[in-house]
């Protein structure tokens, strides 16, 4: 932070400055998690797109065989989990910016968070079912 003149007196307590948590009591956690998930998604999403394009066909047999491989299953689960996480963080900010009124905003945030967790769980569970399931 830039040095301020002697007249600029901070209203924050020394403890508040040290903790760095701000009004939301979460500090830079949201910002940092958004960046971490973004960095992880660069290779993960590119891997997903490239491997999808490299599949010889998109019929059930081919896709199932592809999803059963350990490496594919692991990366797919990571991709679904990190993508939904990053999505939840992003959609949350959009809601906080554009949905006014405390009640409507809180309700939207709760619904969107639940939806994201549900999506992540369904996606990961689907991959696990294929990975640990019997061969078709």
């Amino acid at each position: 932070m830039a040095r301020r003149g002697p007249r600029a007196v901070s209203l924050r307590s020394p403890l508040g400055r040290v903790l760095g948590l701000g009004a939301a009591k979460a500090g830079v956690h949201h910002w940092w998690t958004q960046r971490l998930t973004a960095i992880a998604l660069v290779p993960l999403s590119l891997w997903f797109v490239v491997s999808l394009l490299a599949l010889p066909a998109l019929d059930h047999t081919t896709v199932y065989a592809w999803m059963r491989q350990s490496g594919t299953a692991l990366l797919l689960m990571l991709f679904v989990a990190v993508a939904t996480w990053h999505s939840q963080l992003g959609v949350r900010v959009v809601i906080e910016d554009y949905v006014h009124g405390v009640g409507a905003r809180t309700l939207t945030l709760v619904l969107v968070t639940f939806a994201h967790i549900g999506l992540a769980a369904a996606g990961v569970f689907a991959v696990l079912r294929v990975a640990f399931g019997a061969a078709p």
Partner: protein
Amino acid sequence: MPARPLSPHLSVYQMSRYTLATSICNRLTGLALSAGLLLLVYWLVAVAAGARAYARAAHCLSLPLMKLLYLALILAFSYHLVAGIRHLVWDTGRALERAQSRRSAWLVVALSLLLACGIACAAWLAGARAP
């Protein structure tokens, strides 16, 4: 709701600015990709549900209208990826000067269009190759 002006107060900005355009595009493409996650999970669940369920899902997912949706998602993915990398570079404190930012805005548009074209062409070729 407090009476003071709250951010983002869109009406105070010049809507033609590239800064605003690139920022709002990043948000919109992000939202589009969030909706795209629904499709991804639907597809994964369909694979796990077995060959017959997958065939039904594949029928819905390969409707002509869906091709348009995939094209939109490819564009959104490409833009959000490249613009996101631009944000990560900014987070390190680099390239924040006005001239650099204007240059990188054009670079983002060009690179994301190029990437989207590449993915769309590859998908089209793969579709033509597959039965």
